[in-house]
C-alpha cells in the first residue's frame, strides 16, 4: 500500500493536496485498520441459519419421542425471547431508514422469525391447529412478518413476509381438487402471480411516493417484477393463448424498461431485456416450427439470433445515453 502514500506525496508536490489533507491521508495509511466486518457478519449469519435449520430438522425428526409440551415450550420461549430482545433494544419507529441498534439485532430478529415458522409448523403437524385451512396457516406468518419488517426495519424479514404472502395466495387460489386434477391450475397460478405482482408493485410505488420506508420499494418491486415476468413466460410456454401472454410480456417489458430509465436502475433494465428476449424468441420459434424444420429454417434461426443480439448489444452499449435523456427533464 505504498502506492497510496506515494501518490499523496506526489500530489502534494504538485500542489493538489494541501498539507493538512496530506497529513490526514498519511495518518490514515499509517494506522490502517484491518476490518473483519464482512467476515464476522457472514459467520454470524451462517451460524444463525445453520443453528435454526438444525433445530427445525431435530424437532421434525424427533417429533414423536420428545415431550411435545416441552418442545413447544422451548421453541416458544426462544422465539419470544428473540422478539422481546428486539422489542426492548429497538430504535424508535420512523418512516425513514432506521439504523440497527447493534450488530446482533438483525440476526436475533431473523432467528425469532425462523423459530416462529418452526413453532407454527410443529403445532400444525402435531395438533392440526389449523386443520385443513392452510390459508390461515400461511396468512399468519405473512401478517406477522410484514408487521415486524416495518416495525423493526428489516429487509430480510420483509422478503420472508412477501414469500409467505405468495404462498398464501397460491394456496387460496387453488381448490384442493383442482390441484390433483391439474385442470386450469396452470392458468390460475399465472393469474394469481400476475395479481400478486400488481399488488406488490403498488406497495413499491406507495412506499416510494409516500416516503414510507422508501428503501423497501426495491424489495417489493424485485419480487413483483420476477413473479410477473415468470408468470408471463410460463403463459407463453404452456398456454393455448400464448400470443396474449406475449402481449402481457411486452407490456411488462415496456413498463419496467421505462421504470429502469426513470430510476436509472440497471438491474431492471437487464432483467426486462432478458425475460423479454426469452419470451419473444420462444414464441417466434414456436411459430416458425409450425412452418416446418428445414435448411431455410436453420438459416433464418441463426440470422435471427445474430440480428437480435446485435440490436440488443447496441441498445445496452448505449445505456448511458438512454438513461441520460431524462436528466434535462428533471
Amino acid at each position, binding site marked *: 500500500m*505504498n*502506492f*497510496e502514500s506515494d*501518490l499523496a506525496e506526489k*500530489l502534494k508536490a504538485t500542489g*493538489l*493536496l494541501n498539507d493538512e*489533507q496530506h497529513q*490526514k*491521508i498519511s495518518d*490514515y495509511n499509517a*494506522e490502517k*485498520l*484491518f*476490518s*473483519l*466486518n*464482512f*467476515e*464476522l*457478519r*457472514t*459467520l*454470524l449469519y*451462517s*451460524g444463525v*441459519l*445453520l*443453528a435454526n*435449520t*438444525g*433445530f427445525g*430438522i*431435530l424437532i421434525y*425428526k424427533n417429533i414423536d419421542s420428545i415431550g411435545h409440551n416441552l418442545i413447544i415450550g422451548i421453541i416458544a420461549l426462544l422465539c419470544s425471547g428473540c422478539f422481546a430482545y428486539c422489542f426492548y433494544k429497538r430504535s424508535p419507529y420512523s418512516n425513514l431508514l432506521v439504523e440497527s441498534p447493534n*450488530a*446482533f439485532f438483525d440476526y436475533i430478529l431473523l432467528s425469532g422469525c425462523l423459530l416462529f415458522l418452526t413453532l407454527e409448523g410443529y403445532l400444525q403437524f402435531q395438533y392440526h391447529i389449523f386443520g385443513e385451512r392452510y390459508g390461515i396457516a400461511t396468512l399468519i406468518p405473512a401478517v406477522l412478518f410484514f408487521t415486524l419488517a416495518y416495525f423493526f426495519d428489516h429487509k430480510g424479514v420483509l422478503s420472508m413476509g412477501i414469500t409467505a404472502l405468495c404462498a398464501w395466495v397460491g394456496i387460496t387460489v387453488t381448490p384442493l381438487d383442482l390441484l390433483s386434477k391439474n385442470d386450469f391450475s396452470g392458468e390460475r397460478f399465472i393469474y394469481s402471480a400476475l395479481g400478486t405482482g400488481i399488488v406488490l408493485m403498488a406497495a413499491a410505488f406507495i412506499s416510494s411516493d409516500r416516503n414510507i420506508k422508501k428503501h423497501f420499494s*426495491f424489495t417489493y418491486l424485485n419480487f413483483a417484477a420476477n413473479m410477473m415476468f415468470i408468470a408471463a413466460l410460463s403463459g407463453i410456454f404452456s398456454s393455448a393463448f400464448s400470443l396474449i401472454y406475449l402481449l402481457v410480456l411486452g407490456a411488462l417489458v415496456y413498463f419496467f424498461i421505462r421504470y429502469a430509465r426513470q*430510476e*436509472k436502475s*440497471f*438491474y431492471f*433494465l*437487464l432483467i426486462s431485456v*432478458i425475460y423479454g428476449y426469452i419470451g419473444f424468441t420462444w414464441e417466434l420459434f414456436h411459430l416458425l416450427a409450425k412452418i416446418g424444420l428445414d435448411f431455410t429454417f436453420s*438459416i433464418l434461426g*441463426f*440470422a435471427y*439470433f*445474430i440480428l437480435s*443480439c*446485435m440490436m*440488443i*448489444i447496441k441498445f*445496452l*452499449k*448505449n*445505456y448511458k*445515453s438512454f438513461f*441520460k435523456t431524462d436528466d434535462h427533464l428533471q
Partner: protein
Amino acid sequence: MIIYNKEWLDNLRIQETAEKWFRKSFISVLQLNTVKEQFFCGYKHTNLFVRIGLFLFTLILANSSIGLVILFLDQSVKSFGIIFLVFAGIIWFVLEKFIKEKKYFRNGIDDMLLYVSLSYFISGICVIVFQATDSVNLDNALLIGIIVLPVLIISAIRFTDTFTSVLAYVCFLLIVFILVHKSGSIGKALMPFVFMIVSLLVYRIITKMKKTGRKHYWQNCFSTVETASLITLYAAGNYFVVRESSALLLDLALQPGDDIPFAIIFYILTLAVPVAYIVTGIRNKDRIILRTGIILCALAFVTYRYYYHFMDAEIAMILAGTFLIAVSWFAIKKLKTPRNGITFKDTGDGPSFMEAESLVIAQTFGQHAPKKNDIEFGGGSFGGGGAGGTI
C-alpha cells in the same frame, strides 16, 4: 505485451485512489475532478448489470455467427479442428480491434469474446490431436496441455483477465499431474506431496510478484491465482481428496476399515491447513488467505463427517451454528475497539457486508465520472457502437 494503454491503467488506479479519498472525505469534489482531469483515462466503467447483459448476448451472437458459417460449409468437411482454430483466430482479431480502436475495457463484450476465442482454440486443438492420433489417452492430454498453456498465459497477461489466469493455473497443474502420473508408482504415491509443493511454490511466487509495484495491472489475476493455489494446496492434503484419488490412481480397492498409506498425516492436514490459513490471515492481515481458510475449515468438518458419523446432521448443524454464533459474537464484542490493528468497524476498504447485499440492489450509477468528462475526446477514433462507451 499488455494490450491496454498502460498510462491509462496507471491513471485509472490513481483515479480510484482519489475516489476512495473522496469517499473518506479527505479531499473535495473539486480536487477529485482535478485528479480525473490531470490523470486522464479513456477507459470507461461499465455497470455490472449492463456488463452481464452484454456478456450473455455476445455469447449468443458469437456462437450463432459461427453456427451460420458452419451451416454453409461443405457437409463433407472432416477437419473441424482447423475450422475451430480459424474461428478462434478471427474472434481474437476482432477482440484486439475492439480494444485498440474502440477502447473497450471490461464491458462484457471483450470478456466474452476472449472466452469464446479461447474455447474454440482449445476445442480445435483437442479435435486435431485426437483425430491425428485416433485415440484419447494421457499422452494426448499432455500434448494438448503443453500447446494450450502458453496461449492461456499469453491471454491472461495480454488482457489481464482473472478467469484465464485461473485456467492457466489449472492447465499447468494438469501437466504436472500427467507427468507425475507417468513417472510410475512412486510418483503416484507421492502425488499429494508433489501437488502441495507445487501449489506452495506458485503461491510464494505469486505473492512475491504481487508486491512489486510495476505489476499492478495484474493485481486481480495474482489474487485469483493466489486463492486457487491456496485451494489446491489444501486439496492436495485433504483426506477425502487423497483417499478417493489414490483409490483411482493406485487401483487400491479400499475396503471399509482399510486406510490409505500415511492416513494420519492427511487427517491432520485436513484441519491443520485451514487453521493455519486463518491464523496466517489474521497475523499478516491478509484477507485472501483468511477467507480461503474460513471456507476450507467448513470443508474440513464436512470431510470428517463423511467418514465418521459421530453425530446426526442436525445436531452437527446446531453445534456448528452455535459455535459460529459464539465465535463471531465474541470476536465482534472484542473488536469493537481495534486490537493490534484489527477491528470490527466497517472501514469501507474491503467489500462490506452491505455491499454484497446491495450487489443486487445496486441501483445507482455508482462511481461516475463527473459530467465534465462528457466531452468527446480524441477526435474521430470512436466509430459506431463504440460511441456508447463514452459517457
